[in-house]
């Protein structure tokens, strides 16, 4: 169980191998990668800057991870990497890896972590458009709604 915030890119394959660490009880590994898109509606994005609240982002992601482990005792291990700073279309932003003996727990825990990360981890995206304008990304109502399904369970 670990969280890393970093400006640099990450290598999915080596992160996955390191997290599994040779444990042959692990039968399922889910990896989610979030990427910078090149278009927002009809506007082309030239860059995306991620601002964050370092102390709280680290603490909040650790709390989300701990909640996932409490909710799914069969979640063997997990890893969250979130980048900050200026990124370009196609760049990786976030990596979530979940391990379990069977796939259902790994899939569900990965979705849970991402749903809470989107709405509770203190990161803010500012998009720079190809025409020179830049603006803060507005929070999505869909992201709030995604949390509701976890409250019903």
């Amino acid at each position: 169980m670990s969280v890393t915030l970093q400006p640099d890119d990450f290598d999915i394959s080596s992160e996955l191998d390191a997290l599994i660490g040779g444990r042959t009880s692990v039968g399922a590994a889910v990896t989610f990668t979030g990427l910078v898109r090149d278009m927002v509606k009809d506007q082309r994005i030239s860059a995306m800057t991620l601002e964050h609240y370092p102390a709280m982002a680290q603490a909040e992601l650790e709390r989300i991870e701990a909640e996932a482990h409490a909710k799914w005792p069969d979640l063997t291990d997990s890893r969250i990497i979130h980048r900050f700073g200026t990124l370009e279309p196609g760049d990786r932003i976030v990596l979530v890896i979940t391990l379990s003996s069977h796939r259902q727990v790994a899939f569900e825990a990965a979705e849970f972590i991402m749903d809470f990360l989107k709405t509770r981890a203190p990161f803010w995206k500012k998009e720079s458009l190809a025409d020179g304008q830049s603006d803060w990304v507005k929070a999505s109502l869909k992201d709030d709604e995604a949390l509701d399904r976890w409250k019903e369970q």
Partner: protein
Amino acid sequence: MKLVYFAWLREHIGIDEEQVDLPATIDTVGDLLIWQKGRGDGYAIAFSEPETVRVALDQFHAEQDDPVDRVEEIAFFPPMTGG
């Protein structure tokens, strides 16, 4: 007490952090949001719609009626858009 600002709140106010002594009349996060709005032009814009401002007390998400006494760091920021 240390106040810290992020994203468009930081841009409107023009600083990323400050040390303040809060008036004794401020008990809750809700009181604090109203007080912030009256502190000058940048604050008036940043806090013009207090319902869009999220607050964290010592790195924990807070609600409007949470008390702000015995807190060391209060953060103000818009709804989050990471991931």
